[in-house]
């Protein structure tokens, strides 16, 4: 059996409560339970990992589990070094109202109110979902670090679909939080979803090309996530899968631009400690236009340097990966009006349907929910189905104005088959020479 240099065990138990309301009908509602653990063992030649469903301490001898994991390392062939990193667990922010104190009938009734608010003669379908996920995490490692905490994330989505003569459009709003129950007094978001869906029936597809673009805080946050965040993940840098490899100290954007990932921020991507027991810290990926630090796990820190560990995250029962948490562009000092005036003629893009990046190639794409053509600094015609694509190493020079109004939006980010809660944010941003994709014609 290969000798064990290090091990850690992350055991997560919890429950998920969901409610799904579709056109006024409670399709399903209820609670499910999970219990998952991951044991990582590091030998002289690499990692052996056991992923165990239904883990109970003592059910099998821990030494036997260690032995089984270390035998896996018989096939591994890389000497892995772990960088030094300080531990420490941040306090969990108190919830304004614990969802567990609200019975599911009341949750269902409140969600139904949000869904019903999306009513409109042109709306053919309304759907609202509530999700509440409580995780109890216990971590211990061979160096004696041990911690436990419990975190509850909850929130809702509301979708409205409007339809006219075969033209089908949708409006989608969501709000998720670590600060407790958030279903009360949210009918406005139902109305907003319906309003957007109905308005989009008359929106035009945009004609693609290069143009000036104003991004709203939600979309600019996704931009930071896709265009910069992924490429700064230390595991990708170490593998040679990031165009930012070897670029520390390189000027990549204007001096106004600072992009940060901060797992300690009390937003949806909050982690009080990372998934390998490392204390979390604000990391300035880009500081005043210059590539400054990468996001790291202990392993990628040792391989690459230039940054801090504390960015390892994992789904229950899965091995940790280097991930973003709360990623944002720091606010600037321009007003929204100044940004639109400077844009003059271009496009204003709002909301996000997500994005994707090929960090090795340095190319990303992301999609707005809708937008408006900007003429003489004013929003005019509504447009739909607009995408942006760009090159990581050049596009940031195009960010020339930043608003003073940063806001964060919640979502989930996928990598390596794992999906973790994140938030992205930014102020309003003016981007020159944006490559805009759309199927419109003159």
């Amino acid at each position, binding site marked *: 059996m290969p000798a064990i240099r290090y091990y850690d065990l992350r055991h997560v138990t919890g429950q998920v409560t969901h409610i799904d309301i579709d056109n006024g009908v409670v399709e399903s509602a209820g609670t499910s339970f999970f*219990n998952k653990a991951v044991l990582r063992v590091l030998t002289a030649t690499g990692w052996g990992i056991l992923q165990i469903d239904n883990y109970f301490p003592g059910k099998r001898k821990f030494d036997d589990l260690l032995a*089984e994991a270390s035998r896996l390392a018989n096939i591994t062939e890389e000497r892995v070094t772990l960088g030094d990193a300080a531990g420490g667990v941040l306090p969990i922010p108190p919830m304004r109202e614990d969802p567990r104190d609200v019975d599911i009938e009341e949750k269902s009734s409140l969600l139904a109110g949000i869904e019903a608010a999306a009513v409109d003669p042109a709306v053919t379908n309304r759907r609202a979902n509530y999700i509440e996920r409580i995780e109890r995490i216990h971590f211990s490692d061979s160096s004696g670090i041990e911690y436990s905490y419990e975190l509850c994330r909850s929130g809702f989505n509301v979708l409205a679909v409007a339809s006219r003569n075969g033209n089908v459009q949708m409006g989608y709003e969501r709000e998720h939080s670590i600060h407790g129950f958030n279903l009360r007094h949210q009918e406005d978001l139902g109305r907003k979803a319906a309003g957007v869906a109905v308005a989009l029936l008359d929106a035009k597809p945009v004609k693609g090309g290069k143009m000036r673009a104003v991004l709203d805080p939600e979309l600019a946050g996704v931009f930071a996530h896709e265009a910069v965040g992924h490429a700064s993940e230390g595991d990708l840098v170490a593998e040679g899968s990031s165009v930012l490899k070897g670029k520390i100290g390189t000027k990549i954007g204007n001096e106004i631009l600072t992009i940060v990932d901060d797992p300690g921020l009390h937003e949806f991507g909050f982690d009080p400690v990372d998934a390998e027991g490392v204390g979390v810290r604000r990391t300035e990926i880009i500081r005043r236009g210059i590539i400054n630090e990468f996001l790291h796990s202990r392993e990628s820190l040792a391989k690459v340097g230039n940054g801090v560990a504390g960015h390892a995250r994992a789904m229950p029962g899965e091995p940790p990966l280097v991930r973003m948490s709360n990623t944002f562009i720091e606010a600037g000092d321009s007003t929204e009006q100044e940004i639109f005036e400077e844009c003059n003629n271009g496009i204003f893009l709002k909301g996000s349907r997500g994005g994707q990046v090929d960090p090795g190639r340095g190319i990303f794409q992301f999609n707005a929910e809708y937008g408006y053509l900007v003429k003489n600094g004013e929003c005019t015609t509504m447009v739909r189905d607009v995408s942006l694509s760009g090159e990581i190493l050049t596009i940031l020079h195009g960010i020339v104005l930043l608003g003073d109004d940063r806001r964060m939006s919640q979502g989930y980010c996928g990598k390596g088959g794992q999906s973790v809660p994140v938030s992205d944010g930014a102020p309003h941003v003016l981007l020159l020479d944006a490559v805009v994709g759309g199927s419109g014609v003159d």
Partner: protein
Amino acid sequence: MRWWVAVAWIDEVIREAEKTVDEVEVYSVEGRSVSAELKQKKINLATISEDVGIGIRTIRQGRIGSSSTNNPADWKACLKAAIASGELATPHQWGGLPDPRPLPGAPLAFDPSMHVEPSVARDFLARMLSAAEEHEADITGGSAGLSTATVTLANSRGIRYTDKRSGISLSLEAIHNQSTGYEFDHSSFVDEVDPETVGERASFFACESAGGNDIPTGNYDVVLSPLAYAELLGGVFIPALNGRSVHAGRSRLAESLGREIMGPGIDMYDDPLLLHASGSVRWDAEGTETRRIDFVKDGILKNFAYDLKTAYRYGKQSTGNAVRGNFGVLPSIGHHNFVVGGKRDAIGDEPVVYVHNVVGAHTANPMSGEFSVEISNSFHANGESFETPIRSAMLSGNVFEMHKEVVGMSKKTRTIGSMIVPSIKLRDQQIIGW
């Protein structure tokens, strides 16, 4: 039967549930998988995963409840949660869970020779790496995984079905001068994956795509590889065939039954009984016997997909299209092996833009079908014969309209997840150059 002894506790769940509810269904999964991952050319980690879980669904006076747990021994709490959840659900028209049928027992997607061992994964990685050396790209990562699982479905009408499944999946990533290549393969049968092709193609695409030129904005004839096509098909078109979406007003195809929605010569169907296809299964996630469902025949929309709940609600028949992503989620409408067929002769050798992959397909509008995606590993080509690489560009269009512009499909198909699709050639597509 011997296998049933291992899950005899399920009978206990059913007896207990029947004291309170009209019907009950138990879905249980137990599996084991191993995987090995490369960091560049070296195996950095090896994993064994032991998966277990049960999902319980109860029905009382049309109210459907559900719950799940990783701990089968804790089924009493799970059953209680399922019954409680049913009390919250709006009652539906419900005609009962399926009765048992004398289905053949032999699994369709299980390879008894699949050895779920780390050394097997290691050997596949070595074969991919060796084949990748044909081109001078650097390997950045890769993985090989093997799995087997036993799925059991039981209900209070007497169904006691079990199925064994197996799987192998391979992938390799490469880079050459800021040009990336990715290739993968998967199958239920260990001898049916091709690690040499995965390795060679990953490094080929990285090398061959390097040094690409810009393309002027304009309209071009385009060939989408099976991979690029499947990305757009899976996220937008297939969900629009979901009977639930159709009746709920979330499908653009809702009013199109019986109409021509794409060029003649194109068929789309779900074939759950295809030999050696990884989605093949004789009964769906609710125990309904599966059969081939023709969604599109010669360009005409013929059918939508239904599960029991949606069928009962709208006066239809289940098409055997209930699937479960995992034990923890309720059955929903999906497909088993979605095949694009029809007149597949050839792509021809005329000048086209060949698109091997796209970035951002999941951002397409699932209602309207509009999309604008970044193309990757794209070439000026004559048919499927590559000439010069294209650096970057966006492809814009509409997944529904695009099917009216199909002018050719390749003879050869490829399995991408649960889709079996050819390359397709499209006339006059909009490309936005950088």
